[in-house]
């Protein structure tokens, strides 16, 4: 009958009151549902945020991997300049820069400004240095070995180990996190679906009457689907609020506690990120509801 498709205020009001009746039928279970979604989304959000940040730090570091060759005390600035010239001729080298120790100290002061009080340094502990960047990160080892062999060079350092470890850490964390979150998604889906099954059970008389008088399966399902959607979105919304709070209150403390890690905010895409988390909550809620109501109505 075409009357299904005509909408009016009375119909909407009736429908919303049905949804609300469902949603508030078992408050304790509903809170449990919402709570698990909150925990799930909170962990998911934290993991994605940290992974995203560290991942970006990793790729940034790999892109600008830099070899620092520290000159021995005996080497003169002329030696250093000669080496720089030789390096510049090497096709594997993108750039080579001589940094006298005074300049090195100034750069370090700039970088650590406001994080560590460098005014306590009364003398310059840094040697003269040459900073080298290679074209391809895989050539770092070879170039570093070349520098190491030079008698004027006392020490060669590059961040490769640190970068590789960071990448590996992010990788492991992602895998463990995803496994954990999958588990949580399943858990919250089961809890939501159980809650809805309780609502379905509490409303079995209404459902029987609806079926008897010829309500469509979709119409019977819809209030329960909405209930699942509400639980999912509410849970996710609470998690997003907590994440927002964490981003403003906790994240700055983390970054200041780790001054050597160049961690920066991802910033602009946080809104999109929050939206995605809400969407995930909604999908879990709707999916769980769909499964539990579908099973009941088919019986």
């Amino acid at each position: 009958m075409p009357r299904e498709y005509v909408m009016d205020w009375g119909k909407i009001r009736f429908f919303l009151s049905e949804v609300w009746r469902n949603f508030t039928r078992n408050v304790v279970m509903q809170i449990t549902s919402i709570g698990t979604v909150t925990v799930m989304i909170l962990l998911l959000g934290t993991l994605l945020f940290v992974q995203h940040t560290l991942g970006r730090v990793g790729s940034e570091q790999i892109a600008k991997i830099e070899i620092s060759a520290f000159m021995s005390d005996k080497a003169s600035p002329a030696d250093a300049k000669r080496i720089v010239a030789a390096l510049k001729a090497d096709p594997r080298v993108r750039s080579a820069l001589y940094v006298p120790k005074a300049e090195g100290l100034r750069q370090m002061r700039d970088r650590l400004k406001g994080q560590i009080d460098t005014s306590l340094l009364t003398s310059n502990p840094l040697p003269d240095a040459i900073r080298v960047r290679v074209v391809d990160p895989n050539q770092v080892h070879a170039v570093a070995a070349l520098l190491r062999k030079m008698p004027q060079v006392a020490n060669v350092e590059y961040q490769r180990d640190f970068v590789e470890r960071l990448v590996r850490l992010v990788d492991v964390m992602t895998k463990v996190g995803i496994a954990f979150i999958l588990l949580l998604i399943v858990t919250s889906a089961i809890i939501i679906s159980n809650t809805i099954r309780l609502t379905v059970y509490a409303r079995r008389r209404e459902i029987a009457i609806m079926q008897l008088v010829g309500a469509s399966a979709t119409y019977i399902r819809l209030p329960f689907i909405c209930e699942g959607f509400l639980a999912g979105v509410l849970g996710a919304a609470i998690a997003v609020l907590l994440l927002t709070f964490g981003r403003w209150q906790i994240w700055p403390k983390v970054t200041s506690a780790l001054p050597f890690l160049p961690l920066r905010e991802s910033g602009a895409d946080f809104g999109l990120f929050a939206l995605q988390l809400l969407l995930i909550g909604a999908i879990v809620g709707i999916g769980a509801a769909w499964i539990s109501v579908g099973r009941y109505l088919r019986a």
Partner: protein
Amino acid sequence: MISLREVTLIYPNGTRALDGIDLEIAKGSFVFLVGHSGTGKSSLLRLLYREQRPSKGSVIVDGVQIDKLKRSKVPELRRKVGVVFQDFKLLPDKTVWENVAFALQVTGARTRDVMRQVPRVLDLVGMAHKSRVFPSELSGGEQQRAAIARALVNNPKILLCDEPTGNLDPVNTNEVVDLLHRINLKGTTVLVATHNALMVDRMRRRVIRLERGKVLADDERGLYHRVESEIQPEGEDLAFAARVRNGLGQDPIFSE
């Protein structure tokens, strides 16, 4: 309007509820289904609103073979068939008005139609003055009338009643019988499964007698206890039966 062809219904536990039933029920007729408990009256009604599918045979309601009906088409059938039960099945947390309106609202009726249709059927069943009352505050007869209003609010072509007076005293029974009679006069096909001899005997309508899942008798103007064929009446018995029938025919309510 309704036609059953060689319908057999065997439940999963092996019970043969209906056994080769052939029936034709004309549009606008009033039919009683009688027989002992467990003879298949309720099973037969359940076939007609597709709560149950026959194990064999076909069931045709309003030109549609409903045993083959897809699940998605069942709601369409249910809107053409109103059903009333012995235990009323009213929703206790809704008023009479809300119970009746519910049947329209959940089938997607427009609010305008709900506002027009609900008072109309409540008026028909004589429950307009109790529309704001909850089922628990009503008598059995009133509850049944509210349930009938709910069954009628979608304007069904067929009204199926499964023991509608089973929980009612004689006064309330009479009210319900009277109501079903008036509904039938408006053109709705009415099918009543009952144990109530009083109701059957007063109406003198078609009586289909089931026994062990078969049609034992089908009388156009039958009585609850089959006077004519069962007892094989002779002389005096026939005269008695005629007297009974005449007496009933003079009933001011039910004589046509």
